[in-house]
């Protein structure tokens, strides 16, 4: 699995177990990427068509943000738009895995709910780890 992340998240993605990680804002990094079996897209937007072009014929492109703009140009790829839905057993499973040390989920910082604006501004800049608000 190759992680596609922001430039400042590459080292972290590798530490978490990806065999490689690339900067999705870098066209040259995407250009160097070979053919892939499939893509799991949680970003969408302008990078989606670039990644779609890397998928081998018969491969899958799962996207949380609707089909890539030029999906029609890639009829041999199975485009699968989807939306994450609540699944209590899933969050219990992963919470237990984190508790038991099988997974890492980094918390960047905890901030008061009254600072939600500053917290979102910080999250939007793309740090490493989650920001949690407390009322």
């Amino acid at each position, binding site marked *: 699995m190759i992680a*596609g992340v922001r430039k400042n998240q590459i080292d972290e993605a590798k530490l978490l177990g990806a065999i490689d990680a690339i900067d999705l804002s870098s066209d040259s990094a995407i250009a160097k990427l070979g053919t892939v079996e499939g893509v799991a897209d949680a970003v969408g937007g302008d990078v989606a068509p670039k990644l779609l072009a890397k998928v081998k014929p018969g491969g899958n492109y799962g996207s949380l943000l609707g089909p890539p703009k030029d999906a029609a140009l890639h009829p041999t790829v199975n485009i699968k738009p989807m939306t*994450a839905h609540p699944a209590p057993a899933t969050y219990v499973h*992963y919470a237990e895995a984190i508790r038991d040390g099988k997974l890492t989920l980094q918390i960047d910082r905890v901030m008061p709910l009254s600072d939600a604006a500053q917290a979102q501004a910080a999250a939007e800049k793309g740090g490493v780890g989650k920001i949690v*608000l407390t009322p």
Partner: protein
Amino acid sequence: MKAAVLHEYGPPSNLKYEDFPDPKPGPGEVLIAVRAASINPIDFKMRSGAAKEHFPVTFPAVLGRDVAGLVRALGEGVKDFAVGDRVFALAWGAYAELCVVKAADLAKIPEGVDMTTAAAVPLVSCTGDQLIREARPCSPARRFSSPERSAASAAAPSSPRARSAQR
């Protein structure tokens, strides 16, 4: 209650910490006293308007998908939870002191997991797990037990070299 309220699309400063009507649990719903709510990219894409095609916002709005807290009250017909239970969920309206969640979407926080961690788990776990299982970007033999490890998006390599490196 107090909440971070959004009145129109725009920059982070559009989130105003102010009074907002208390939500009431309907049949099959649970009222949660929020102890922690985590921020996800969809939150700021909804705030800015970047995601309005797929996730339009009706104003005034309280954003936030990930909630952890204590059960405050039960709606009609809810059997599986009790007042005071430690719970977490993938929900809507988590940036607030109170949040209503469908009982079917709610889970008890496992023993030994704190509120902060619990609030960080629901959306990333559902996103990663469902994206890998349902959209199947790689063959089942090489699926990962921890798909949410990829921070943003992930591609499964098809070269033999990459395959062996993955084992």
